[in-house]
């Protein structure tokens, strides 16, 4: 089975991915709208998996919807809610339904979400999940049994280039590549000179890197991320630029900044593409792409 996303990665073009979030409930209207809007513009759409540990419509169901609508889904899978049996079973199902891209994540803690008393599973971690994908592809499961019919995935993971301390994250990044990651979507990067340093290091590994771009929607939102989101660091001058936007113009300013960053990443060929996260404002992704010279 061919992954169109994998073809895009291998083509050498500047790859663009974005996100769609399944709803809290069964009303898929908004998600459908976002998929419709983005499916012909991006090379892949991540479907988030109970993001921030908030229970939602499943990423597998969301990825299926993207597929049915003619988009290219990237199934996000965390290790928080399923043990190795359930994860493998879901990979078999995904593969059987033509979902051929998977982003392997450890997952946020249960206690950060809306089911704070639930059991966090973490039977596997992100690097072990990647290795599991590769094992299933060889026709074996983790219990050493043979599979009747195998899977095929373009598998990826994430890295946080702004983490402090950084080296433990880089060691984990190398383990993810060793375990079989073909692509990496980074946590949001804002200091592109710093990101270039990360890329000088990351380029030695056989993996495609998509720089994470999170749309800034206001100066307080940027400060909130600095305070509360691990590994996200919005530089002071960008916060000031956001604050300088005229009343009602903050989102427009955020789009301008995101576009400027994408342009620089692309023009300087810093990495292989971008992963645009508009966090609830997915309808703005085409505007960000336009600002970034991608449309």
């Amino acid at each position, binding site marked *: 089975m061919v992954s169109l996303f994998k073809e895009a990665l291998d083509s050498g073009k500047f790859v663009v991915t974005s996100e769609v979030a399944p709803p809290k409930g069964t009303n898929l209207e908004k998600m459908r709208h976002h998929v419709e809007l983005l499916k012909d513009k991006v090379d892949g759409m991540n479907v988030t998996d109970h993001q921030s540990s908030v229970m939602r419509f499943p990423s597998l169901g969301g990825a299926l919807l993207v597929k049915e609508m003619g988009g290219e889904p990237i199934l996000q899978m965390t290790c928080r809610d399923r043990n190795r049996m359930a994860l493998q079973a879901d990979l078999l199902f995904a593969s059987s339904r033509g979902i051929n891209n998977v982003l392997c994540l*450890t997952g946020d803690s249960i206690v950060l979400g809306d089911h704070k008393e639930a059991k966090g599973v973490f039977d596997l971690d992100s690097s072990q999940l990647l290795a599991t994908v590769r094992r299933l592809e060889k026709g074996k499961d983790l219990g050493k049994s043979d599979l009747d019919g195998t899977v095929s995935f373009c598998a990826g993971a994430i890295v946080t280039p702004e983490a402090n301390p950084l080296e433990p994250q880089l060691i984990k990044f190398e*383990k993810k590549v060793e375990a079989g990651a073909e692509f990496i979507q980074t946590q949001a990067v804002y200091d592109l000179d710093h990101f270039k340093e990360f890329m000088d290091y990351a380029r030695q590994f056989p993996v495609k890197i998509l720089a994470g771009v999170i749309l800034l929607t206001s100066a307080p939102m940027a400060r909130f991320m600095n305070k509360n989101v691990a590994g996200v660091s919005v530089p002071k001058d960008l916060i000031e630029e956001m604050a300088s936007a005229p009343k009602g113009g903050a989102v427009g300013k955020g789009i301008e900044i995101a576009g400027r960053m994408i342009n620089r990443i692309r023009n300087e060929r810093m990495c292989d593409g971008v992963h645009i996260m508009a966090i609830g404002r997915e309808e703005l992704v085409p505007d960000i792409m336009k600002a970034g010279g991608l449309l």
Partner: protein
Amino acid sequence: MIRSITRQKSEEEIDRLLSGSQRIFVIGCGTCVTLTHTGGMPEVESMKEKLSLKGKLVTGLTVLPVACDHMTGEILAEYAGQMNQADAFLIMTCAFGVQTIARQLKKMVVPALDTLFIGKETAPGRFDEVCTQCGTCIIGETGGICPVTSCHKGLVNGPCGGTNNGKCEIDEEKDCAWTLIYNRLKELGRLDSMRVLQKPRNHQGEPSPGKIRLG
């Protein structure tokens, strides 16, 4: 020395558990819960007062030297009368003590405490969990620091993306185990150990409930 670390249940829960019982015998313990001030003599006496104020009759109280050992014949004899008068026992020990006592008495036992973890006092009044008795020890590869216990997610291949400035994503009071392990291994010149891709853990090293016959 490792200790059983406990925290008193809420008053509402204790009230609910004792709702059908009028006459109560209260038991504390002289070891861990004395150290943590959750079930030593002062706490047991204070519990007696609280129960009396709620209209319960406290038939007696005692602080056993070691509640997870069987009660001696002397103790049982000394308190036989008061124990016999009680409808229920309120046990201010860890769950090991509660279960040991429950096996010896033919009456309802009610735990007054929640047993949080097996831990060590690492600074005055500060207790840290050190081992979850997983049955498949890996600390030979992590510089003697246990990620199964000390990492909130029990990860064995390095930190998650939620760690920030050496702290855990769930609580900035909690250290990121993998930052500690990284620092230790770096100091020892053994970061190579952290680079090894660890296989999924065996969660059935000793299938629960643990039971073993030695020799």
